[in-house]
């Protein structure tokens, strides 16, 4: 039974963690490029250089001493996001939606006073949320107001798009929808649900919830998840493809969020993107990768790669002749 399922997964081209690590991350993602994706401040800087829109950076804090400068950074803004520059998997992100003098309301509805905020910042600076626990910086940035098209399929928080970009080709995409359980965070580990997205059309598929179960409706709002078209889909794919130029990583996760006013914004890049995207899309990554491989190694602009990626998706990832 084990062996049969093994063969079935293999036939479906499903990628396991071991293969992702050995054959893709280690082979295609050079170590020296990691700082660009692991440090979100650097990511932001390089993304802007490559013409990728990002949430506006209000400022950053590098030492506990600078925490006192936070009010000056946020000035009279009502809402903002605190994000550890080296945070992983959404750890340590605090979204402030509203401010009354010294009290800050998070997206989850909690009210933080200045002491609590300061404590969180010192923890983040001393590396509680960073990989390996090294001292960290905290970014203060624009809080994304998510596009109203997703109002009814997310609970508070911001739904985001995770796109796997293989050698610069957007390959697989899912939308992560915050739930009550995930405290408004778009993180599958924390209880958000993920919906696959057709690369060719930008249309959502049914979502995958906790325990990898298929959920047709959003657990909190009850609205149907499938069949929605992502606005600015061309722009989203182009940003994802450009993520390759920014990071030079051959196996890349690109996180994009859709803002009501500013359109798609690049949140972060990920050198070790998770594999749940396969469940959300009900498809194996290796199957799609083998369709892209004949195209690899040819120098193409991001626009050309997006066009080819959509063509591949339309063809159902049957191997096609390189144009």
């Amino acid at each position, binding site marked *: 039974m084990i062996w049969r399922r093994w063969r079935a997964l293999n036939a479906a081209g499903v990628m396991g963690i071991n293969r992702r690590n050995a054959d893709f991350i280690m082979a295609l993602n050079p170590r020296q490029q990691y700082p660009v994706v692991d440090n979100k401040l650097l990511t932001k800087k390089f993304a802007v250089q490559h013409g990728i829109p990002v949430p506006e950076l209000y400022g950053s804090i590098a030492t506990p001493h600078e925490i006192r400068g936070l009010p000056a950074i946020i000035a009279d803004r009502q809402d903002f996001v605190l994000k550890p520059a080296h945070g992983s998997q959404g750890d340590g992100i605090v979204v402030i939606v509203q401010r009354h003098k010294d009290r800050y309301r998070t997206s989850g509805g909690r009210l933080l006073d200045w002491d609590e905020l300061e404590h969180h910042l010192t923890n983040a600076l001393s590396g509680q949320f960073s990989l390996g626990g090294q001292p960290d910086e905290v970014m203060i940035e624009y809080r994304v107001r998510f596009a109203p098209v997703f109002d009814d399929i997310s609970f508070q928080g911001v739904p985001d798009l995770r796109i796997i970009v293989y050698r610069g080709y957007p390959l697989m995409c899912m939308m992560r929808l915050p739930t009550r359980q995930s405290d408004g965070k778009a993180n599958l580990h924390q209880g958000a649900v993920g919906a696959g997205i057709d690369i060719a059309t930008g249309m959502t598929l049914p979502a995958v919830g906790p325990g990898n179960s298929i959920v047709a409706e959003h657990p909190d709002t009850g609205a149907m998840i499938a069949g929605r078209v992502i606005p600015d889909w061309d722009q989203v794919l182009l940003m994802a493809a450009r993520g390759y130029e920014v990071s030079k990583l051959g196996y890349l996760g690109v996180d994009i969020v859709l803002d009501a006013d500013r359109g798609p914004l690049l949140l972060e890049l990920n050198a070790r993107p998770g594999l749940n995207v396969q469940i959300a899309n009900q498809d194996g990554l290796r*199957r799609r990768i083998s369709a892209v491989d004949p195209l690899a190694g040819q120098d193409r602009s991001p626009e050309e790669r997006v066009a080819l990626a959509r063509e591949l998706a339309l063809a159902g990832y049957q191997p096609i002749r390189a144009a």
Partner: protein
Amino acid sequence: MSRRHLLALVLSLTVVGAGLFWYKWQVLGFPVTAERQTQTWTVEARMSFNRAATGPVKVTMRLPDSPPGFMIFDEQFISRGYGLILEDGQDSRSAIWAVRRARGDQALYYRATLFHSRETPAQRPTPPFPSRPVMEDPFATALEELVTRVRQQSADIATFAAAAMRIVDVSDDTARLFLGNRPSPLERAQLVIQVLHSARIPAHIIQALRLVEDRRDGELEYWIVVHNGDDWLYFDPRDGSRGLPANLVVWSWDAAPVLEVEGARGPSVTFATRHTIEDALRVAELRTEREHRRIMEFSLLDLPLSTQSMYAILLLVPLGAFLVVLLRNVIGISTFGTFMPVLVAMAFRETRLLNGIVLFTLIVALGLSIRFYLERLRLLLVPRLAAVLTVVVLLMLLVSIVSHRLGIEIGLSIALFPMVIMTMAIERMSIVWEERGPGEAMKEGVGTLLAAAVIYVLMITPQVQHFVLVFPETLLVVLAAMLLLGRYTGYRLTELLRFRELAGGGK
């Protein structure tokens, strides 16, 4: 290219490791199983006597001399203030202690380590036929009658001896004439010898020590050896059974008391027997040293004992790490930290598995609640870690004291848990708890304990311990396996479950 390189490396490591192992096993005769450990014994004779007045004392103790089936090495004589002479007689060995002034209760010790040897000891000389015992009536007639009855029940020398030992007992009226109602084992054995001598069969009494695990106050047993014309046969005079048991050490080749003390009263000798693992390793060392000196100079078994026992544990760590690789990369269990399960498993070695799991869970649970409380105080990371560490140590102390008061001794072994590791576990668990929820934290905690338990079971298997200590080169093979697993790109077993929805055939 790198793949071929890896395979070449793996292959050469395997060949070197397995080759060395084969050489040591087949050519040098290193024991591949741990069985030999159980056949290695430490025997301790405690000689005590009392010297009421001050004056010279001379103690003569018979020592075992090439007992059949055993080899003696590493003899120790513990006798503070006494002069010691070893005397090597023709058929016996003795230690002679002497002191000019001694007063009060005195105790001397002789300790020897024995191991089973396959070598046959030098053949003892064939004895002359004994002369018949000369006795007065009615004993002479009674002895004659005993011999006649024994002869009727026997066919040859061996069966004659066995029959003699069966018949010579207090239940036999004739025998009771010689023995009285409560004969000592020695008196019975002496009568058996007289019966045998009457039939002109060479025989005499020997004294032997039975090796019993962890015995404190053993005594020598009287046995009877009979020569059947070709060989010496061993008999247990109590029931006439023939053959020397494997756990019997011939201590003395005659019936004379093994301990003689001049100048003091109340001499007594007791024997303690037990077997030890370290000694078993020195057996292998000794055995090889005699034949292949060069190789032993680079052997682990040549190191001091304390260092060896340290390596006995250290060498298990790579095996534990290998298990972690299997559990994480092939099975897909998630654990706190990469090698924490190994460290926890090493702590389990002292506490035993069940107690270890209970204590570990207890400390982590208590520490976790303290950690959640400290979180409210908003401490900086490093001071908070230090505080949790201190709390962990105090909790360990508390558990030890409480369990001691309750009479549960195992609580004392909690001090062996690596407290820094526990602190990190608590810290990591609390972060996972807050960020990913209690479910994920529990999953990792259970995964850690499960992995630790599996590693513990491997570590306490005597076969495994013995194997890595005697054949450390097999770790090269383990290393090769690790390198191979480093390129393992197949699914983890848990992924078969995780991606089950995708197994229906790709779209």
